[in-house]
């Protein structure tokens, strides 16, 4: 069984040859995971990058420097922009192709990859879903931690209640939207005699901004394997008429300061959000929110809803990563996802009545108090001390 499923295939996302950051991050994690895997199991499985595009050979070379052992490259003018149907078809062909696998291993029994990675963004989340539907195996999405383990499991269905050992199982950890709980997903063969079935690859889509790429190493050696994609007219049925890059109305990068709020506004959301906006105005800051707020859990006026409780303002792994000079987090407890989005900030001030909030470990100043009490005082002090600044500017 072990030689039927080998290697970790990483589906690379790029825009005309420029890799989307999550692609290099995935490679980095893939490299670390497989180095550990090969050591633990004394094996020689590869990290294989899968690239679909047109005239992006340069990209393939870079991928090797960033950790890929091999790059399977399908070039075609039809693969220039991302279209789900044809991408799914081609990637699935590549995944099932024994000849390709033979280029980098003993593939006499090769059926499909052992593991697969995708980026968890608009394209990758859907692409991973359709590829895994085609490959008839399991997918866990929005993952931020991965561990390979030999697990002994007793499952009413998977093992018919027996204790069975599953070797080389990929534990895929996904945070829930509050950011405080981890759900671990496993993709497991059915070892129940009534319904035996093998499920590979074990696949996941990875949250951008979580893992770090490896240091670019131009001394790394690898090979680019060309693949001629097979598709028919019908696969090309989606026509892209127009594409344009949009700038978000919310521009964090041009602001020196950011004030964010989270569920701490809940006692009187409308008023508290007004306070936050006032504070932001005072220091010419942009306003950000924590992920739960974008789900609109509070009832507020339409104006406030459409201005603030929008995905564009989310700071965190599911949103934007920022690094302003000054970051003020009001009523934010400090879920991992949010911290990941702002921890590079210069100076971090948190306002929170609960001293046990995780954000206390991630800030420079922790103002203990409720935002409805603290912000008015802050605003007053900011106004009081402002004229001094004007004088200096002159």
């Amino acid at each position, binding site marked *: 069984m072990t030689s039927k499923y080998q290697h970790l295939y990483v589906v690379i996302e790029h825009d005309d040859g420029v890799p989307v950051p999550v692609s290099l991050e995935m490679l980095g994690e893939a490299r670390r995971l497989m180095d550990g895997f090969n050591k633990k199991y004394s094996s020689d499985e590869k990290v294989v990058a899968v690239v679909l595009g047109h005239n992006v050979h340069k990209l393939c070379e870079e991928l090797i420097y960033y950790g890929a052992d091999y790059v399977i490259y399908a070039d075609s003018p039809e693969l220039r922009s991302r279209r789900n149907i044809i991408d799914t078809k081609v990637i699935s062909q590549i995944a099932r192709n024994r000849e390709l696998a033979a280029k980098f291993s003993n593939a006499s029994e090769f059926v499909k990859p052992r593991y697969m990675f995708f980026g968890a963004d608009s394209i990758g989340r859907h692409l991973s879903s359709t590829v895994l539907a085609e490959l008839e195996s399991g997918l866990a999405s929005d993952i931020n931690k991965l561990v390979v383990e030999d697990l002994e499991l007793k499952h009413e269905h998977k093992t018919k209640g027996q204790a069975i050992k599953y070797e080389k199982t990929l534990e895929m950890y996904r945070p829930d939207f509050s950011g405080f709980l981890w759900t671990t997903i496993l993709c497991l063969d059915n070892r129940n005699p009534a319904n035996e079935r093998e499920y590979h690859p074990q696949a996941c889509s990875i949250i951008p901004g979580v893992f770090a790429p490896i240091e670019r190493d131009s001394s790394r050696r690898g090979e680019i394997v060309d693949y001629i994609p097979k598709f028919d007219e019908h696969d090309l049925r989606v026509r892209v008429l127009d594409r344009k890059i949009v700038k978000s109305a919310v521009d964090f990068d041009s602001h020196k300061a950011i004030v964010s709020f989270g569920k701490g506004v809940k006692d009187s959301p409308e008023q508290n959000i007004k306070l936050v906006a006032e504070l932001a105005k005072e220091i010419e800051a942009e306003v950000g929110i924590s992920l739960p707020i974008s789900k609109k859990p509070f009832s507020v*006026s*339409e*104006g406030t809803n459409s*201005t603030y409780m929008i995905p564009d303002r989310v700071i965190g792994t599911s949103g934007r990563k920022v690094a302003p000079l000054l970051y003020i987090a009001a009523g934010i407890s400090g879920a991992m996802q949010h911290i990941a989005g702002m921890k590079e900030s210069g100076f971090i001030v948190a306002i929170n009545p609960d001293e046990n909030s995780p954000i206390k470990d991630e800030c420079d100043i922790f103002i203990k108090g409720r935002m409805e009490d603290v912000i008015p005082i802050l605003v007053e002090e900011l106004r009081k001390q402002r004229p001094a600044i004007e004088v200096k500017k002159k």
Partner: protein
Amino acid sequence: MEHYDVAIIGGGSAGLAALKQLSDMNKQAILIEAGRKTGSKNISGGILYSKKPKHGKSYNVEDVYPEFLQDLPVERKITQYMLHATYLDKVFTMNLTAAHEYQANFGYSVLLNRLNGWFAKQASESAERQGGGIVSGVHVRSLSWQDEKTVVETDEIEPFEAKAVIAADGVNSEIAEMTGAREKFTPEQLYQGVKVIVKLPEEIIEERFGIGPDEGAAHLFAGDVTLHHIGGGFLYTNLDTLSVGAVYHYDSLMNRPSEPYTLVNALLKNPLVAEFIKDQVAIKEEIDKNLPKEEQLRTRFAVSKLIKTWNDLRDSYHSRAAKKRLIESGKYKSEEEIKARLDSVQNDLATKYDTKFVTDYVELEYGAKLVPDGKRCAMKKPYYKNILFIGDAAGRGVFVGPRIEGLNVGIDDAVRAANAVARAIDKQNFSTQYMGEFYSQSIEESPYTRDMKEIDKDYLKIFLDAARDVPKDIIGQRYGMVFKLMSSGTLRGLAVGFANILGYDKLLPLVESEETYVQVPIELAEKKGRQVQATYEPTIPTIAQRIARLKYDDDRISHIKVLNPKSEFMRKMVTLCPTLCYSMEGGGDVTLQHEACIECGTCSQETDWHHPRGEKGVIYQYG
């Protein structure tokens, strides 16, 4: 572009009546309303009358809506109509029920959210059968003409064409403004009305006002409650609420600006009114801060819930229909059982949570609007090209002494306009000669138009009879000769005839003066009034609290632009805007913050005034 025969702009009572009438005549008509649903921006005093004039015909609400008398989407039938002259804690009361019943089939107190909701249901059902209907959440931005058809452009949907337009968009008619059909009304031509809805359980209303379940009372006030402005206060009984407000000459307010909320507060503080509106209210006590946080939260939650139960049960107990429902549902076996439960809940609140039960009043909604005085501003020719103006949009409000009518006038106008349009559709002739002039003629024949031009001597007699008890020395001193004249039947006829020849408008300044509305009543009350003791002091909400209770859908852009921030008029807006949207900035400039605007139009004279875009703006719950 889509084509429709008739477009009615504005979904108030007049517009809806036009839609119903046209649809019943098998004509296709659409109604465009800016609010998210018809009625959301409407507010009225308000009483809806049905008239049987001695001369001419009045198209009444029950003529347009045959189901009206069956469904009765109204509050109470007014059977008592009293005028009170006030001075401090003294009141002199005159029974004017005869004036209210004069030439009337009935007068019902109404709340427009409910009334117009019902009108809309009837009108849209009829309209849909003709391929028309109501489109809400759409604000008309401009009108232009192409081959004699009107092209209507809106903020929300694609432009469409109409052969005829009925403008029913109220006293601040944007249609009138954008077409230049008439000038904006000036303060001398307008009244500013402001009111609050007060909660009072059904049976308590009946007991307090001495009325039966199918009856209602209307009380009017003049004297010191007006803070020396020309106009008066009113209090109407609804089913389980009261409409309490005041209507004042806008130019009187311009001469000596008072905040509208101050005016309505003066009325609420009057001892007679205070005694009318009082109720039993539960006051939450402060929760012991020494208790653990969770305990505090749990207690706060429990008290809120229990007070809500007490309020709901109390309202049900004092409502005939609700009591019946409770007993029929099996939850309670008898009225006594409901009372017992109510008492026990009250006892629990008092003993367990220290809740206090005090006498105070409960306010539900604050609102204001401008009312056109037909005597001064009714459009002589209420049409422009193929647009017919009806109701407040045509300046046609009836104001005669205590008689204020707008709803029924709008409905009457609507029928006349609908008839004119239907006739035009049949001949496919929408010219001013065939349609506009026909409508204008019809309006001339309306008994309401008569009331805007002449004094009705029989109506006058009613007042004189009602004022029988008024000491001659108070009245006589001021009007001396005139009063002597009026008291005599024959001479009265001659005098009124003469006055009508002279012209109503010449007499108006004499009649509608501070003397009539303030000084005479004050003297009356002082000299002849009875004393009224208020048993408590009403806790009046601040204007900020009143605004907070209103519901808005804010359009982030401002719908009004200040044209001259330094003008005298705009400075007065700082005081006269009912929701304090205007303020003075450092440099003497008046600035606008539009979020609390209730679209009354008080500031429309010197601003680029518009309603907000579709669905946006204020949303009245009662109206």
